[in-house]
């Protein structure tokens, strides 16, 4: 019996995924849980295990396809038969399949020699929107044409007419709503002027943004449009912290890879506890601040596929060594694209460390809907006057961006002072942690 293996639910709010690589071919025999596709969602890379065992009769997707949840990925012949479903004899058929034909399934024939499972499959080329099960939207041909020109999916428009019929005014209202509802807008910012033809000045190349790139673009755009942000800078004296770190490293050659980030994680919790408005989200409609009584901190990881921010849970309840171990593990998984989706969710604050690369300071963008993000630049030796004497100290630049709706400048400054204090006095990490 032939079974259709469909794109499963991949997580909250994930409606589609890009196919990075198809790992099976028609004719292959696959097992349950065998990885059949590499996918990339808005949030992460995913290896998709098969839910069925059997022979792959047809592969419905190819590398680079964008596939919605529920779409057919593979047709799997579950019993080891020869796939002998023949089409019914063509006899005196005047059957008129009116109207239904153009609504044909989205399945796209990828291989010319592939047996036709679905008899009506459009050939190729970008498919018009629309899930197979949806009927036509209730609108007249002229309204449908108008929507097509504007690039509007009529299924997203609520009709004001009898029986939900969509009229011209409904489409116009929908367009206005799209233009103003910036929060829901994708990368294309409302009101952004259209691009000129760059080709007129020299050769260009168009490169498709990866799913991760697009999601990053969307997220930072949302944050930029919605969050009035301030960035504040300070320096933490980490001479002693660094000395302690080196001591540990030298005395534990086979120990955990203890990093500055792991220690900063611990110090940040102390500052967040002192200033809970930095571990919060703003609910502007309710006029409320949502304070979180847990400390899940996201750490930005630079991978070859793009920026990924895995979340370290319950940082307040873990020792520096535990944090360092977890951080190392999670960063490695992120680089290998093996992060689980729930490891990317639920963060309350974010740390982004560019110290390993360079730079004196930068302004990170708040990771909406969180209200604060800490950037770390490259630490350097500086002349510092201590007890009236000039001394060389190792200083770590701290860059804190925060949502001014939740955090005032004074509190931002206090947060940084608290953080810098904790970092310059490693003992406090033990005492407060």
């Amino acid at each position: 019996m032939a079974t259709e293996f469909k794109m499963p639910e991949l997580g909250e709010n994930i409606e589609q995924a890009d196919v990075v690589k198809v790992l099976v071919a028609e004719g292959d025999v696959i097992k349950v849980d065998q990885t059949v596709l590499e996918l990339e969602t808005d949030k992460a890379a995913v290896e998709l295990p098969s839910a069925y065992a059997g022979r792959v009769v047809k592969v419905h997707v190819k590398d680079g396809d964008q596939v919605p949840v529920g779409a057919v990925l593979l047709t799997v012949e579950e019993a080891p038969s020869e796939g002998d479903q023949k089409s019914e004899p063509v006899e005196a058929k005047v059957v008129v399949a009116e109207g239904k034909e153009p609504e044909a399934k989205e399945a796209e024939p990828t291989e010319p020699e592939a047996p036709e499972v679905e008899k009506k499959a459009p050939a190729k080329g970008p498919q018009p929107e629309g899930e197979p099960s949806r009927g036509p939207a209730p609108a007249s041909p002229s309204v449908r044409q108008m929507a097509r020109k504007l690039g509007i999916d009529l299924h997203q428009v609520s009709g004001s007419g009898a029986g939900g019929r969509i009229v011209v005014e409904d489409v116009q209202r929908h367009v206005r709503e799209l233009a103003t509802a910036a929060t829901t807008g994708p990368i294309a910012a409302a009101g952004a002027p259209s691009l000129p033809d760059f080709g007129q000045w020299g050769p260009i190349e168009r490169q498709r943004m990866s799913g991760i790139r697009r999601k990053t673009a969307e997220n930072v755009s949302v944050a930029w449009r919605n969050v009035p942000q301030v960035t504040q800078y300070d320096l933490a004296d980490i001479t002693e912290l660094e000395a302690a770190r080196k001591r540990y490293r030298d005395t534990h050659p086979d120990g955990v890879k203890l990093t500055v980030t792991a220690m900063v994680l611990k110090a940040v919790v102390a500052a967040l506890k002192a200033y809970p408005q930095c571990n919060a989200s703003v609910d502007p409609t309710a006029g409320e601040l949502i304070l979180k009584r847990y400390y899940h901190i996201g750490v930005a990881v630079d991978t070859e596929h793009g920026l990924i921010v895995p979340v370290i849970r319950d940082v307040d309840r873990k020792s520096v060594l535990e944090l360092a171990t977890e951080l190392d593990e999670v960063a490695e998984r992120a680089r290998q694209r093996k992060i689980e989706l729930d490891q990317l969710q639920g963060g309350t604050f974010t740390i982004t460390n560019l110290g390993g690369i360079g730079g004196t300071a930068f302004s990170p963008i708040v990771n909406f809907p969180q209200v604060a993000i800490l950037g770390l630049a490259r630490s350097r030796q500086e002349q510092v006057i201590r007890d009236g004497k000039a001394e060389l100290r190792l200083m770590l630049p701290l860059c804190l961006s925060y949502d001014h709706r939740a955090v005032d400048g004074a509190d931002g400054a206090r947060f940084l002072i608290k953080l810098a204090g904790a970092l310059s006095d490693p003992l406090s990490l033990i005492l407060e942690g």
Partner: protein
Amino acid sequence: MTDQASGQTQLAVIGAGPGGYAAAFHAAELGMQVTLISQDAKPGGVCLLRGCIPSKSLLHIAKLIYEARDADGWGVKFAEPNIDLDALRSWKDSVVTKLTDGLLELCKRRNVRFVHARGRFEDSHTLRLQGASGPVEGAPERLRFEHAIVATGSLPAVPGALSVEDPRVMDSTGALALEDIPKRLLVVGGGYIGLEMGTVYAALGSEVTLVELTDGLLPGVDRDLVRALRPRLAERFKSIHLNAQVEKFEPQPEGIAATFKGQDIQPTQTFDRVLVAVGRRPASQNVGLENTQVKVNDRGFVQVDRQMRTADPAIRAIGDVVGEPMVAHKASREAKVAVEVIAGKKSEFDNVAIPAVVFTDPEVAWCGLTETQAKASGQQVKVARFPWAASGRAATLGRTDGLTKLIFDPETQRLLGMGVVGPGAGELIAEGVLAVEMAAVAADVAESIHPHPTLSETVMESAESLFGHATHLFRPKR
């Protein structure tokens, strides 16, 4: 003016039926340089030359004959008609010629180059043009094109068992040629072609025997519509055999001996002529599509998306060759879409209702969702029926055997489909198409004034009956 011998064209349209010529004309209107390639000497395709138009000319005559006969019972007696077959044939041919000449004239006026040749793709941008005997005079042998539209249509399908080399065994083309009026005619296939041509020959005096493989006439059409058609057909045809099939044909001097399989059918019978009308197949062979990237499915249909694009970026396809329903009006609409997409416009075939009409007596027509389809897919619908027994106009015509039905979404009362059986059903269905495409709801139809006394009132009253208050139909309240 396009140079008739030029080896270049912006748009090549292969096939000059209602899809092909509509595409050519629309493209010319949009400023494209167009070459229309037709394997017939005149444009028009199957529809004008060997299909809709000649058959409807003959069916009109059949209607006259039967109405004259019906008048017998109303106090007007006509003598039996005297049929001059040659005159009849030339009248039918003159209708066709008038229309095809009109199309030729339109080609000239629109500056569309018309080439009488077979077009065969050599690659994705080249067609080889061949006449019946080698190159066509005055036309290039090779035509380079920027874009092409494949509109090659369809052909009658004749299964091997029914294929006999004898002029007395005809397909629809042969039947329309009207060589003679056979005394005994066998029609194989209870689809629209078999029923229409059977009606023509029966009216002209043939004894018509019809065999249909499945258990009903017009397979796939709602049964209540077909039921209303049955009595008249049964009266006019000598016999109708369902669940019956032809085993073989043997040409003999006195006629075609047919062997049948099925209940209640005499297993061997002899006929003067046989019409095989068991379906049509897409004309996707011998066009050289294998030399392009165009993909053809296992049923022979060229695969296209809603913008009529094939897998070859330079080639579009429209009409019968891309899929069911094989009807001229679908091809014409697809032609417009294909041309607009080539012109860079945002167009797509998003039609909800493609009407279908069977020109029998009574006519059967439907559009949008049918009750049969709804049942098959499990979609919930509400069906409102209005029998013509309650229509004043139908009574004046002596034709109360009709039925109008509307299919609604039970929640929104949106009109999803319509079906009609009765004289003039083909004209009535247009209102259903408009209402379905406009996403009209029951109240829209019920509250629009329809002229009295006409059959169109049955559409309004069907919609009213959804609310339980059709003026001329009483149904006890539930």
